[in-house]
C-alpha cells in the first residue's frame, strides 16, 4: 500500500537526487542494461544495446530510495543501543529528515519532497491505524471505552475550543501584530492542532512501556478523536470559506449532527467490513497464499469507503481491525497469521518511519516559514496548558465513576503524552491558501508544535515516567491458573451483577460473549476453528507447545555436537532419507525418552529465554514438517516453483490430520498415565510422578523393540498393562495409526537440523547428555564409515518380531541422523509420556513392511561418506540394553 502511494506521489522526484545519492548513480545504468530490448528501439540511431532511461524509472526509483534511506537509518540508529534507549526513534527520524532536507535544499533549492496529505492519508496512515486496530487488546479497550470516549470527544473539543479562543483573545490584544485572520481561522487552527496524534503516541509510548490501562487510554483517545478532528476541521473549514457572517445556527446544528454521522458512520463501515473480512477468510481454505491479502485489502477498502463517504476513515479501519481480529485469527492458517502479523508490523513501522522522516524533510522549505514568535509560543503554551487542565477536569469527573482510579501520576503522563503529529501537519497542509490567508503561519506553527511534542516531550517522557515511578507494563507468560480463574471471575462477577440487579460491564460482556458464541462465531468462523477457540484450551496448547519446543531447544543445545560435525548438506539428505522412519529410529526415540527425561525436564526454568517466539517456532515447525514430512513417496514437484502453492495441499492435509491425531493421542495417554499412577504411587509430586511414570513406561518399547528375546518383550508388555488402562492399550494396538510418532519425530528433527546448521554455537559435549546407563563408547561423530550399506541393522531387526528384512538403506539413511535426532526427540517426547512408547510399539506391527526405495539406495551410495556415519552405533547403543 505504501509503495503504491509512493508511486502516486511521483512528484517527489526532483533533479537533485543525484547529488544526494551520487554513489547510486551507476545503478540505474546497470539496470538500464538489463532492460527489455523492446524498449530500446525508440532511439533514432537504430537498435541500441544499452540505453539510459532515467525518466522511465525515476519516480518509483526515488521512492524506493527514500524508503531505503529511511530503513537504513533505522538500522544505524539501532546500532547504538545507548542512543535509541534515550532518544525516541521518531525524534531521530525527524532530525534525519531535517538533515536530508537540508542537503537536498543546499543542492537544489527546491523542496519537492514533502509529506503531502494524499500520501499521508491514503498510504501512510492506514497501515499504522490498521496495525493498531488489529492488535488492539479489545477487552482492555472496551473496558475503558467510556473513559476513552470522554477524552477523545470532550477532550478534543475542549482543546480545540480553548486553544482557538485563547489565541484569538491574545490576537485581539495585539501582541501578535497584524494578521489576516478571524475567529473562525483561529478555531480552525485550534481544531487541527487539538487532536492527539495516534502515530506520534504509538511511536513514543511503545518505547516507554507504561501500564496497559494508561496506554490504552492515551492511545485509544488518539485513535477515536479522529472523528472529532475531522468534523471540527470540516466544519470550520467550510465556515471559513462561507465567511463568518454567513454562518447560521443551523450550520452549527448541522455540525453537531455531522459529528454523530461521521463517527457512527465510520464505526459502522468498519464493522461491516470487518464482518465481510471475517466471512471471506472463512472460505479461503484453498487459497492460503492470498489469504493474508484479504486482511489488508478489505481493511483498506473500509478506509477508502468511509473516506469516500466523508466519514471518519480512521475509525473505520480501527474498528475493522478490532472487530475482525478474533475471527480472522481463528480462520486463517498459522502461516497466514504470521504473514499478516509481520506484514502489518512491517508496513506500519515503515509508514511510521517515512512519516517522521518526511516531516523532517518537509520542514526544510523557506517558503512555508512565517515566523510569528507570539503566535507560535502561545500555541505551544496553550496546547500544553489546556491539555493539562482538560485531563485534570475530565479525570476528576471520571474518577467518580471509574473503578480503577486514575491517579495524579497517570494524569501527568496523560497530559504529557498529548503528542501532536503528522495528522495535524497533513490537515494544515490541506488548507486552502485562498481561504485561509495565514496558512503559512499555521503550517509553520504546526511544524513547530509537532517537533516540540515529538522531540522534546518524546525525549523527556521516559525520564518522567521513571521519575514518577509510573506503573510499567510487564510482559509475562500466560498462566493456566490466571486464565482459568480469570474466566471463573468473569462468571462470578456477572452472576453477582445479576443478583444485585445491576447492569454493568460484566453483564454486557456476558451478553456479548453469548451472542458472539451463538451467532457470530458460528457465522464467521470455520467449523474447525469454532471448536478449538476456547481460550483456556488455547493457553494449555500454548504451554504444551512451549514445553515441547524447549525440550527440543534443550536437546539441540546438548546434542548438537553430533550435527555440527557433519556438513550441513548431509543433514538435508538425511532428512529426506529418514522420513520413512525405520524401526531403529523408533527404538531410539523411546530409548532417548527414557534416558533423558529427567534432566531435560528439570532444566525447564533455564529455558525461559528460549521460549520467546513460540508461535514463530511453531510456524517453523509446521512449515518444515510440510516440506519434509514424507508420508508418501517423495514428490518431485515440490521442488518446482509454484506461485500459488507453497506446498502440496495433500501433504498439508495429511500433516494436519496426523498432528491432530497426535495431540489427541497424547492427551489420552496423558490421562491414562495419570490413572495408572494413581494406583501405584500416592505421595510424590504430581509431575514428578509423571516423569517417573514415563521413565518406567518408556523403557518398555526400548526393551521390546529391536533385540533380545520375545519373552523379554512379553514381560514388558505385561508391565505396561500395569500402568495403563487395558482398554487404552488395546486401543493403541488396534488402531492402525502410526503417523503420530513419525510426525513428531520429523518435526523435531527438522527444527534440530535447522538450528544446528544455522547456529553452531552450542558445544555442549555429547556425553553430557547421556546418563550413566547410556554408553556410547564406540561411537564418534567423525569416525569414518566404510560406505557399505549397514549390515548390522537388518540383523538386529529381523531377529525380533519383524519377519521382513528391512531395507538396509532405510536403516542406514538415518544412521548419522539418529544420535542427534534421538536427543532432540527425546526432549520433544518427554512430554509424550509413555504414549510415545506405546505408540511406537503399536505402530511397529502395522508399518513394518515398508516398500523398498531403490532410487534412494542409489542416492545413498553417492553421498559423501560423512553422512553414513555408523548406523551401527545405534544398534550398539540399543543392544547394550
Amino acid at each position, binding site marked *: 500500500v505504501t509503495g503504491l502511494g509512493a508511486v502516486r506521489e511521483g512528484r517527489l522526484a526532483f533533479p537533485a537526487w543525484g547529488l544526494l545519492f551520487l554513489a547510486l548513480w551507476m545503478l540505474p545504468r546497470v539496470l538500464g542494461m538489463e532492460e527489455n530490448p523492446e524498449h530500446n528501439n525508440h532511439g533514432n540511431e537504430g537498435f541500441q544495446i544499452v540505453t539510459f532511461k532515467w525518466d522511465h524509472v525515476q519516480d518509483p526509483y526515488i521512492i524506493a530510495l527514500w524508503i531505503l534511506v529511511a530503513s537504513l537509518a533505522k538500522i544505524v540508529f539501532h546500532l547504538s543501543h545507548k542512543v535509541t534507549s534515550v532518544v525516541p526513534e521518531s525524534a531521530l527520524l525527524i532530525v534525519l529528515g531535517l538533515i536530508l532536507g537540508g542537503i537536498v535544499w543546499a543542492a537544489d533549492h527546491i523542496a519537492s519532497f514533502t509529506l503531502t496529505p494524499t500520501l499521508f492519508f491514503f498510504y501512510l496512515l492506514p497501515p499504522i491505524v490498521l496495525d493498531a486496530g488489529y492488535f488492539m487488546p479489545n477487552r482492555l479497550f472496551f473496558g475503558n471505552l467510556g473513559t476513552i470516549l470522554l477524552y477523545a470527544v470532550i477532550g478534543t473539543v475542549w482543546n480545540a475550543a480553548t486553544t482557538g479562543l485563547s489565541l484569538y483573545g491574545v490576537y485581539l490584544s495585539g501582541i501578535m501584530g497584524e494578521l489576516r485572520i478571524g475567529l473562525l481561522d483561529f478555531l480552525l487552527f485550534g481544531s487541527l492542532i487539538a487532536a492527539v496524534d495516534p502515530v506520534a503516541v504509538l511511536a513514543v509510548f511503545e518505547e516507554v512501556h507504561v501500564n496497559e490501562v494508561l496506554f490504552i487510554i492515551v492511545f485509544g483517545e488518539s485513535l477515536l478523536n479522529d472523528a472529532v478532528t475531522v468534523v471540527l476541521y470540516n466544519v470550520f473549514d467550510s465556515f471559513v470559506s462561507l465567511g463568518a457572517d454567513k454562518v447560521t445556527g443551523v450550520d452549527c446544528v448541522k455540525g453537531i449532527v455531522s459529528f454523530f454521522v461521521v463517527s457512527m458512520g465510520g464505526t459502522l463501515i468498519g464493522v461491516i467490513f470487518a464482518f465481510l473480512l471475517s466471512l471471506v477468510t472463512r472460505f479461503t481454505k484453498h487459497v492460503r497464499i492470498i489469504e493474508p491479502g484479504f486482511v489488508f485489502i478489505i481493511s483498506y477498502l473500509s478506509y477508502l469507503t468511509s473516506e469516500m463517504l466523508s466519514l471518519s476513515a480512521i475509525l473505520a479501519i480501527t474498528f475493522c481491525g478490532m472487530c475482525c481480529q478474533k475471527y480472522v485469527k481463528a480462520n486463517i492458517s498459522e502461516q497466514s497469521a504470521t504473514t499478516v502479523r509481520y506484514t502489518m508490523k512491517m508496513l506500519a513501522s515503515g509508514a511510521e518511519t517515512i512519516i517522521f522522516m518526511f516531516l523532517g524533510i518537509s520542514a526544510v522549505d523557506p517558503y512555508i516559514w512565517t515566523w510569528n514568535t507570539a503566535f507560535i509560543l502561545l500555541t505551544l503554551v496553550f496546547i500544553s496548558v489546556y491539555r493539562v487542565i482538560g485531563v485534570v477536569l475530565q479525570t476528576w469527573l471520571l474518577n467518580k465513576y471509574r473503578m480503577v482510579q486514575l491517579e495524579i501520576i497517570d494524569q501527568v503522563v496523560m497530559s504529557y503524552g498529548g503528542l501532536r503529529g503528522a495528522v495535524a501537519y497533513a490537515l494544515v497542509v490541506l488548507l486552502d491558501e485562498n481561504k485561509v490567508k495565514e496558512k503559512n503561519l499555521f503550517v509553520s506553527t504546526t511544524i513547530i508544535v509537532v517537533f516540540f511534542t515529538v522531540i522534546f516531550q518524546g525525549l523527556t517522557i521516559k525520564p518522567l515516567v521513571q521519575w514518577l515511578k509510573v506503573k510499567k507494563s*510487564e510482559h509475562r507468560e500466560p498462566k493456566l491458573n490466571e486464565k*482459568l480463574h480469570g474466566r471463573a471471575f468473569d462468571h462470578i462477577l456477572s452472576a453477582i451483577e445479576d443478583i444485585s440487579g*445491576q447492569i454493568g*460491564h*460484566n453483564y454486557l460482556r456476558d451478553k456479548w460473549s453469548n451472542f458472539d458464541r451463538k451467532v457470530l462465531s458460528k457465522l464467521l468462523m470455520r467449523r474447525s476453528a469454532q471448536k478449538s477457540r476456547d481460550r483456556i484450551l488455547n493457553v*494449555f496448547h500454548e504451554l504444551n507447545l512451549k514445553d515441547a519446543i524447549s525440550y527440543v531447544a534443550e536437546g539441540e543445545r546438548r546434542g548438537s555436537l553430533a550435527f555440527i560435525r557433519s556438513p550441513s548438506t548431509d543433514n538435508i539428505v538425511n532428512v529426506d532419507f529418514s522420513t520413512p522412519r525405520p524401526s531403529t529410529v523408533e527404538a531410539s526415540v523411546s530409548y532417548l525418552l527414557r534416558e533423558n527425561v529427567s534432566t531435560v525436564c528439570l532444566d525447564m526454568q533455564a529455558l525461559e529465554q528460549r521460549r520467546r517466539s513460540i508461535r514463530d517456532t511453531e510456524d517453523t515447525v509446521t512449515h518444515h514438517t510440510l516440506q519434509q514430512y514424507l508420508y508418501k513417496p517423495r514428490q518431485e514437484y515440490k521442488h518446482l516453483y509454484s506461485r500459488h502453492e507453497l506446498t502440496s495441499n495433500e501433504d498439508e492435509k495429511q500433516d494436519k490430520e496426523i498432528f491432530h491425531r497426535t495431540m489427541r493421542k497424547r492427551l489420552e495417554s496423558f490421562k491414562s498415565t495419570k490413572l495408572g499412577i494413581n494406583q501405584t504411587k500416592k505421595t510424590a509430586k504430581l509431575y514428578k510422578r509423571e516423569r517417573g511414570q514415563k521413565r518406567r513406561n518408556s523403557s518398555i518399547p526400548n526393551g521390546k523393540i529391536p533385540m533380545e528375546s520375545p519373552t523379554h518383550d512379553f514381560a514388558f508388555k505385561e508391565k505396561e498393562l500395569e500402568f495403563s488402562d487395558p482398554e487404552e492399550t488395546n486401543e493403541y494396538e488396534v488402531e492402525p495409526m502410526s503417523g503420530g510418532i513419525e510426525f513428531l519425530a520429523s518435526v523435531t528433527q527438522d527444527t534440530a537440523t535447522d538450528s544446528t546448521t544455522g547456529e553452531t554455537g552450542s558445544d555442549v559435549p555429547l556425553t553430557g547428555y547421556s546418563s550413566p546407563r547410556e554408553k556410547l563408547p564406540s561411537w564418534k561423530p567423525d569416525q569414518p564409515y566404510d560406505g557399505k550399506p549397514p549390515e548390522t541393522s537388518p540383523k538386529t531387526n529381523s531377529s525380533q518380531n519383524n519377519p521382513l528384512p528391512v531395507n538396509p538403506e532405510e536403516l542406514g539413511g538415518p544412521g548419522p541422523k539418529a544420535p542427534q535426532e534421538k536427543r532432540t526427540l527425546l526432549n520433544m517426547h518427554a512430554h509424550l509420556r509413555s504414549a510415545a512408547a506405546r505408540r511406537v510399539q503399536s505402530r511397529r506391527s502395522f508399518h513394518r513392511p515398508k516398500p523398498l526405495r531403490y532410487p534412494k539406495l542409489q542416492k545413498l551410495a553417492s553421498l559423501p561418506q560423512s553422512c553414513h556415519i555408523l548406523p551401527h552405533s545405534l544398534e550398539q547403543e540399543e543392544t547394550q540394553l
Partner: protein
Amino acid sequence: MGSHGSHYEREAELDLILEETGFSRANLSGLHQRFQYLDKNKNGFLSQMDLHNIKELERNPLTDRIINSFFPDGGQCVDFGFVWVLAHFRPLENEDSTAGDPQKPKPLNSQNNKLHFAFQLYDLDCDGKISKKEMLQVLRLIVGVEVTDEQLEVIASRTVQEADEDGGGAVSFEEFTRSLDKMNVGHKMSIRILK
C-alpha cells in the same frame, strides 16, 4: 434490616451493616430494594429458589456455586445478610488506607477476602485445598463442550501442577493467591456499581 424489628433495632442493624460491608447508604437501599424484589414470597428471606429464579443467571455456568456461596452451612434461606456476600465485590478503596490499619479486621472487599470467596467456590469439600478433582469440576463448568473430557483432565492437572508449589497435589489458598499474584485481583474482582 429485614421486615421485622423496631425502628431502633433496625437503625443499629443498619449501621452495623454499613460499617461491616462498607456500602454507602444509597447503595444499600438500592440493594434492599433488590432484596425485596427477589424475595417473591415477601417473607424476609431469600431461598435458593428465589435466586435461581433470576433469569439472567440461567446462562451462567457457575450459578449453582455462586448461589450456594450465599447460603453458608447448607442453609436454605438467607436474610438481608446477603449483602455481606455482595460486599466482597466492592471495589478496593485506596490501597494505602486498607494497609494502614493492621488492627482492624480486613474489610470484606480486601484482596484477600475476594480471593477467598473465589477459592471457596472451587473448594467444594472445604478442606482448604483445591484438589485436581475440584479443579476439573470447575473447568467442566466453564469450558465449552467442545473440549473433551480427556483434554479437560489434562488441563486440570496441569493447572494444579502449575500452582502447586509444595507438591501436595492440590492447591492451597496460599498457592492459589500466589498463582494469581500477577493478576490485579482487586480490580478484577470488583464491580464498579457496587462502589
